[in-house]
Structures are given as structure tokens and as C-alpha cells.
């Protein structure tokens, strides 16, 4: 990789100051741990001239466990993965955090950073020289999608491990800007059909916290599929959550897939197949098949398409099997 391009670094010490700096500098971008942004700047995928540093914003860091859970956006992924409250009450969230990248990256990378992580594609993510040779894509420097040059959209894939779980848990995020604070459900944080403008968060908004409502009997899990046991982004993420009655009947079921579309992809029609039924091998396989048929992976990650599509079925089933009530 090349060196970082030149940029101005403006450290903030409060969320309000960060919001003010982002508003004052129209070409500024916020940076937390930098584990996603800096490599992309070295590859000249992103070249912000001004960075607003969130590392020093103390109130963004920390986990508060009450009836629900509130996680500061600056909390390190490693801290989220190891927090005893999170592990006990929201094990799926702890697991998703523990499966991001590598220990080194989890020590620097933040919860907010993972939720806002740039979309990925094996054209867009090529090194700079390689993209010079091949032609740039619409997401960085070019005007067409190299994968589907006939179309007018970018297909780059959402690669956040936290968002699918946060979504099935019914979590929301807090966004602060000079205009004030607003709350947005994670389910509404992402744009479904644009790999370039993939967040509903405005550029000048600072994501300050992830709020998870009380679990209230909802049991969730997260299964990540990737080539290696560390480092790799998901080839597929499956977040599943069910609320079962004492007889084991699903009162509610939620399924969200990561890394198969531009945003975390809810597959409600697959989840609904479980409602009113017990989690049996038969109902699980029916839901898994329905989830698979809802996905159309593109040739922009590792491994062939047909295989990746089939893995949706396999891993949705595996996730749901984890949620079969004990003793059944």
C-alpha cells in the first residue's frame, strides 16, 4: 500500500464539538478507530481532506446495562465482546463483536465504526495500481459499476457483523448533529439499493450510541461464514432471533442476513414461516430454504456465487438450530 494522503486531523472532545467540526468542514469525515478508513485512504478509495477525530471523546466510550443496553459508539469491539453484561444478556452481540477481523483490529476498531463500515466489492477494494489498470468504478473515481457496467447502481456489499444482530435485537442508534439529536432504528440505518450512499446517517451526523431494548425473552444468535477463522470479512452473516412460549412455539422470529446485499438484508417471509410453530428440523429447513431464495449474491466477494447462495441455507439452518430451546 501507499502512504496516507495528506489530510488535516481535527480532534474533538465532545459529540457536540465533533458535530460542529463536521458541519464547519463540508469535506470532513469522522474517524473512530480508523481500521476501515485509513487502509482505504492508503488505497485512495477515500480521500477526505479533513478528518474529525472521535478517539478523544470520552462520553462515546462505555457500556451501560440497565433494563436494556446502551453502548457508546467509541467502545472498542474488544470491550463489547468481553463485557460480562453483554455476554450474559446479549450473547449474540458479544459473539458478533468477537468475530470481527482480528484481535488487533478489535482493539482499535469501534462499535460505531463497525456499524458504519464502508461497503465492499472486489473491484472497489483492489489496490490503487490495479484499479488504475482496470479502470475505476463509480464508487471511487469512475462512473460505472465494473461488476454490472450496464446498470446505474453500485452493488458493493454491507460487511458489518454488528448490524444484523443489532437489527434482530430491535436496537437503534443515536445520531447527533448541529441540528440536534435523533434516534434511528438499526433497521432503518442502511440504504438497500445504493452501495455508495449506503447509510441513512447524514455526513455531518455523529453516531454516538447503540441502544438495545430489553431482551424480554428474545433469544438471538449470530453465525459468521468466512474462509479463515480470523481477519476475513463475512462472506455471509446470519442473525436470528426468536421468542418462544413455554411450549417451544415461536411467538416471534426475526432473520437478517449480512454480506449478501448492500445493506443487512431482513428476510421476514422466511422468519414468518416459523411463527406459530416449534423449531423442528422441518420448520428450520423450510425457513432456511426461503431465506436462500431471497438472496441473489453477486460476484464481488470470494468463492463462486452458487456456492455462496447455498451457504445461506446451510447457515440459516445452523443459526436456527442454536435457538432450539434446551431439552428439545
Amino acid at each position, binding site marked *: 500500500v501507499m502512504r496516507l494522503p495528506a489530510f488535516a486531523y481535527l480532534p474533538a472532545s465532545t459529540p457536540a464539538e465533533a458535530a460542529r467540526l463536521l458541519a464547519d468542514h463540508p469535506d470532513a469525515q469522522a474517524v473512530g478507530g480508523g481500521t476501515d478508513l485509513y487502509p482505504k485512504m492508503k488505497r485512495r478509495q477515500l480521500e477526505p481532506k479533513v478528518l474529525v477525530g472521535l478517539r478523544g471523546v470520552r462520553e462515546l466510550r462505555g457500556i451501560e446495562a440497565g433494563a436494556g443496553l446502551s453502548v457508546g459508539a467509541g467502545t472498542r469491539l474488544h470491550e463489547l465482546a468481553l463485557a460480562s453484561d453483554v455476554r450474559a444478556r446479549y450473547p449474540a452481540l458479544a459473539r458478533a463483536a468477537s468475530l470481527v477481523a482480528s484481535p488487533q483490529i478489535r482493539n482499535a476498531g469501534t462499535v460505531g465504526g463497525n456499524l458504519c463500515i464502508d461497503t465492499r466489492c472486489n473491484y472497489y477494494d483492489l489496490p490503487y495500481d490495479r484499479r488504475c489498470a482496470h479502470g475505476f468504478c463509480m464508487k471511487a473515481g469512475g462512473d460505472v459499476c465494473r461488476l454490472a457496467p450496464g446498470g446505474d447502481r453500485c452493488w458493493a456489499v454491507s460487511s458489518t457483523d454488528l448490524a444484523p444482530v443489532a437489527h434482530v435485537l430491535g436496537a437503534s442508534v443515536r445520531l447527533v448533529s448541529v441540528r440536534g439529536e435523533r434516534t434511528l432504528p438499526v433497521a432503518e440505518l442502511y440504504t438497500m439499493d445504493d452501495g455508495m450512499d449506503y447509510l441513512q446517517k447524514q455526513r455531518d451526523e455523529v453516531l454516538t450510541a447503540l441502544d438495545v431494548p430489553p431482551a424480554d425473552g428474545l433469544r438471538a444468535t449470530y453465525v459468521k461464514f468466512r474462509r479463515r477463522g480470523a481477519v476475513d470479512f463475512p462472506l455471509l452473516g446470519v442473525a436470528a432471533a426468536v421468542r418462544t412460549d413455554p411450549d417451544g412455539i415461536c411467538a416471534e422470529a426475526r432473520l437478517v442476513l449480512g454480506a449478501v446485499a448492500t445493506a443487512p438484508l431482513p428476510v421476514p417471509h422466511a422468519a414468518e414461516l416459523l411463527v406459530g410453530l416449534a423449531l423442528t428440523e422441518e420448520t428450520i429447513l423450510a425457513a432456511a430454504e426461503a431465506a436462500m431464495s431471497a438472496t441473489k449474491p453477486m460476484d464481488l466477494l470470494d468463492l463462486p456465487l452458487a*456456492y455462496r447462495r447455498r451457504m445461506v441455507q446451510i447457515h440459516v439452518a445452523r443459526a436456527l438450530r442454536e435457538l432450539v430451546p434446551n431439552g428439545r
Partner: protein
Amino acid sequence: MAVTIDPTQAPARGTAVVGGSDPKIDAHAKATGQTVYADDIHLPRMLVGRLLRAPHRHAKLLRVDVSRAAALPGVHGVLTGQDLPIRYGIMPVAQDEHALAVGTVRYHGEPVAAVAAIDEETADEALRLIDVEYEELRAVSSIADAMNPELPLIDGEGVGRQVNRRGTLEFGDVADGFGRADRSYEDLFFFEGNTHLPMEEHAAVAQWEPEPRGRLTLWSSTQVPHYLHRTLAKVLELAPGRIRVVATPVGGGFGGKSDPFSHEICAARLAMVTGRPVKFTLTREEVFYAHRGRHPVLMRVRTGFKEDGTLTAMAFRTMLDGGAFGSYGPASVYYTGALQTVTYDVPTYKFEGVRVLTNKPPCGPKRGHGTPQPRFALECHLDKVATDLGIDPIDLRLRNLIEPFSRSVNHLRVTTCGLRECVELVEAASGWRHKHGALPHGRGVGFAVGAYLCGAGLPIYFNDMPQSEVQIKVDRGGGVTVYSMAIDLGQGSDNMLASCVAEVLGLRPANIALITADTDLTPIDLGSYSSRVTFMAGNAAVQAAERMRDKLFAAVSADLGVPSEQLVARDGRIFDGDDPGVGMEWSAAVGVASVLEPPLVTAGSYKPPKLAGSYKGAGVGPSPSYSYTAAIVELDCDSETGVVDVDHVWIAHDIGKPINRVSAEGQVVGSVYMALGEALFEEQVFRRGYLKNPSMLEYRSPTFLEMPEVETFLVETDDPEGPFGAKEAGQGPLLPVIPAVANAIYDAVGVRIDEVPISPDKVVKALEQQAQGKEPRVGPKAMPDFDFGEPVRVDPPDQSPGREVMAL
């Protein structure tokens, strides 16, 4: 520094250092960041060099205009192909490279121009100001493309098949061998290309001392300072005596730093034209283009067997995708056929090989050079044969093992061979007999063997000179300095040299100073490739040390009146072996010898015995000895996802004798790691001829989590020609691991993946075919037609091949 020795690892047979586990002499400096690699060198007024690389796979170079770049403030020099018109290449018969492209570009990433500027930013800016006009040509992207006579020639004018090298050899009457078989077998295999992925990116620094002296110094992370020295002399048209090449400690080579490279030559020329030092450090992406890695090879194996499992004939056909240049190709092609015969007694053998050029980064030698691909094919093939014959795969191998001290059908001299012991060790340790064919569905064990050179018998350019020379100087304070051109790549050559000398002189390795890999200061060593350094530089070091010891013994003998035959050098003393109280400390002995036996300077050299046969192609394969390895892999294969999780590897390696036990075991374990990467993950993927994964994130090398438990056994056959009986450990142990993985997958789930890497989608595809009642196999289905020509026919050695017991 105190030196402690683990008593459980105490060396046998009276050696004090060899066979033990003294800490590597360079370990502390490397672990604490004190080692100075090429990129750590900073000289006053030093400029930064950068290469402009071609954006096309195959194109005519119509115009290169550097005027705007040269005019940029801060730019001190710009080069194009016109400035370096002389062709070079590592092998005398393959002088097909230019430092910067001339006429055409042959692959995406080929250097076209070079700049030297005051800093990286300016150099990069200058690259953007170079105007190049190309006319794109149709690109050749695969072996199949290379066999298409309609595509433009990469090395020549017009169109045609891209034949770079071809070799056809027949030893004995193969048709007769197949005629004697009860059953004959045929399989096709493909081994995808992959790369070395050293931690250190290539770097070079050049400095020019102006006329009248006119001397060039180049520091480079190279495995081959001598061959680089020769190349610089040729390309720069400078007398060799005016060039000094210093190989800096190499942060991983694996064969990837064994060619002379564009950035080295450009650094030298830019230093000469600017009058300032110039440094090039490749980016990680550029390392993928510099490449010289594993050839993709398409292979056909045919064998004939008696019902009892006795081999009667073997025929091997290989097609190598060489990428854009010759590189080591003339050797690589023969290496795909040379070493099958040193593990098994093959009565009749035919080899047909062809290397083609393609518009891809050039291939070359990677750990095992040309032999892991055919070894993968052969060992998977034998696993299938064993299944068909109803013979345990280990028993099939044991029935056909070559005998120690024999000659192979292709005239390779085999001396020590501990393969049988290696097989027995891993078989017993793994519990093979109750596991193979008996583990639950999804879990399996696989077995394979391999063999490798202890140094190529012949140098890269033909000559009768020693392959390695070592000097030793003892100063008046008793300090010992060893001078050798061998370069440490992390494989431990520095420690090996220090250990051999320390052993002879009765000192510890930590007492020995080393000056290495400097063409001004050190005598010849051909380089750190082909697993030659321990065997060859080690022997030269032992000879030099023995000559030094003789001087000391002569002096001490005269001083103490003890016959020198009775003297012993040990524990920092020279003393009477019959009466250890009579003797003197090392430093006192040096004082006496400085008076009686000056100068305290000695030298030794090593030249392998004449081993090569007289037929064309006979130069590839001969080695003064061969190392042998057997491996068993146990793994889980998820039948839904096809994901393979290697749980355990048992590996036994005939090393002759470990110079340093921990270091040798480290080489074995490192080989297992690299082999597992090649077996399951690593490959160069091209999309429309462009490398798809030139980054460490996308080129998936295994992490800690993929690394299984490895149980290592060192088998000591005490080679009569190796230093202290030692053989190689750096390359051979990689060979059996890859086929053992494929064979274990078959044992686990009953499918054959005849192609590496074995990615999970291939396993799932084969399992689907299995479920549909089709052949449960993924692999190549056909080989392109090609005329390999009439074979060079060679009679087998006089006596029954593989059975001739030789006196050394």
C-alpha cells in the same frame, strides 16, 4: 551471554554444539528489531525510486515520453527501456528480460519506466507525468490460451503456440513396463499458481562512487548476491570488480528473491546517473507482480502395477504456465519430472514436459521448485491405486520404496535414505492402522511422502568451480570471524555456519562473528536456493575450521609436547584427550599459534561430486544427497460447507543430522504451514488476465487459527557427505503435506479433489456429484494436445534400478 542447553536435547555422538539447541545467533536482534534490512538503510542525500508499471497484459509499447516527469522539481532521474537495453535472465539459456520494457509489455505490472526523486510523493507524482502510448494485443491468460496457435506470440513476432521449453525423456522401455503390468492407471491433476508472500517486501539501495574509481555498491534483499553481481556487470556494462553487492538480511525469501529484479538494476543505474544514493522498496502490491512463484501445472500421471502392488512403469506429462518470462523455467520444467524416482523404485519411466509463456507475472522457484506439483499428483494418484488394488496406501508405498545407496532409473545417485523409518514413525504416532478407513464420516487421515535436493548438483551457469568457499580469521584476542557469501533468509544459515565452526574449534556459536553475503568481503557462495547452504557452505565451513584447528593443534602440540593427534578442542580449551588437565585456554592457544602458525587465516571449499548423467536434461535432479519426508494429516471435512479443518499433522523428516534441532524443527513446521496454505487457500486468481487478489487481505494465507498441532520427528541417517551428517530441512517437508490433505479429504467424505487449492466450493461440488451417483471428483478433465517430440532415450543404470548398492 550465558548459553544454556536443554539436557533433554543433549547432542549425541560426542558433538558439543551440533544436534543441540543453542539459541540462534541472530534471534535476539531479529526479535528486538535491531536487524538492519535493506529498507532500514538510509544514506545521506538518498533519493527514492519508484517504478511505473504497465496497465495492460500484452501491448506494443509505441511511445514513452518522460519529458514532463523529468521537468518536475525534485525529480533527479528518469529511465526507460532505452537506457537499459541489455537483456538478462537468471539462466544463461533464458536471457529474455529487460529491466524496463522494450518494444512490448508482457504482463500487467511489468516495469516500463523508473524515476528517482527527493521523496515518495514527488516520485509518485512523476510517474503520473510519464506519457506512455500502448497498442493492446490479445492476451494469453492460460495454458489453453498458450496452446492456441492464433494468439500473438509473447516472445517473438507473429502468432503461434507459446512454447518456452520442452523436454521429453524415457528411461528404459516404458511400453514394456506397462506390458508387464496387471493393471494400469491414469489420472489428471492441476496445481494452481501461488506466491511466496514473504513478510519483507523487496528493497534495494544503490550508491555510486564517481569516476575515476567508478564503483557501485548495491544493498538488496536478495537470495543470490553472486548471480545479481553477474547480472549487474552485464546489464550496466561494468567490470565485476567495480561492483559490490551486499545481500542484507532477507525477511523471508522462499525463492521469491532468487532472480535479479528490475528495481535492483534501476536503483543501480539511477544512482549512477544522479550521483546520489537511490532506494527502491516495493509495495505489497508490487511484490505480487514481481512474483516468480509457484507455476500452475497441469499434469497427467500413468502407472502400471502388478496385482501385488509392485510398480512396473510410470509416465508423467506436465504443462507449466510460466507467466511472461523464462526465469528459472528451463530448470522448472525438468524439476516437474526429476524427483518422482528418488522415492520409489520405478523400473521404467517416461517424462514429457512443456513450459509455456502467458501474459501473467513470471513464475519461478517457490519452496520445492517444480516438485510440489508432481508430488501432489503422484501421491494422490498412488492413494487411488491403493484403493483400487485393495492395499493400504502405506503398504503400497513401502512395497515400492527406493533402497538407500542405490541409483534411480533416471541415474540419480541416492545415498542415505531414511524414508522407511519416516513412514514407520508417522504411521505409529498417528494411529494410522486403526484410523484409515475407520473414522466417522467427515473425519479422515491421509498419507504421503516426498523427497528433495540438498543443493542442486550443478550451478546455474556451467563451470567446474567450487559452489561454496568459506574463510576463517582468528584475531590475536581469540576472536573468530567467518566469511561466507551465504545469505540468511530466516532459514538459519548464519547460525548453521557459526555452529559448524564452533563445533570444530570447541567454542559456542555465540562466540563466532560472521561477515556474510558481501561480494567485496566474502568468498563465493552461489546463494540461498535449492536447499544447498547447509550442505555446501556447511562443508566449506567445516573444512576451513578443520584447517584452523590443525594450525592451533600444531602450535599447542609444539608448546606442550603433546602429539597433535591426541589434542581435543572443546569447551573453550585445547587439551590432551588422554589427560584433560594438560592443555590451555582457547585464547592462550591462539597466542601460541599466532607466533608459530601465522597467519591465522584459513579457507575451505565445497564442490559436489560429479553426479549428472550425460543426457540432455540430466543437469536437473542430481544432488549430493536427498532429504526424505513422510506425513500424515488428520482433518475434519464439513460435508455441508466443504470447509476443511486440519486437526493434526504428523511429519517425519530424514534430515541426516540436525545442526540445530530447534531450528530444523522450525523449518519443518514452517513447511507444514506453507503447505496447508497452498493446499486449502492460496492461489493467484485472474479475472480477464488481471490478478484479482494482489493484497494480503484477498490472498488468503492461513492464520494462527488454521494451524494444526504438528508433531515433528527428525530421522537421523548421518549422511556421509553432509557436514556432520546433515541434510536439508527447508523445502522437502512441504512436499508430502499437500497430497496428504487431499487424501485425508477422500478418507473423510469419499471425494477426490484433484486440484489445489481445495476450496470448500470444490468439496461441495464433488459431494453433490457423489449424491447424484456421478464421479465424486473435481479436477481437470482433459489436457490440451501437444507434440512433445521423440523422447531422449536413456538406458537405466547397469544394475537393476533402485537396487544397486553402491560403495561411496
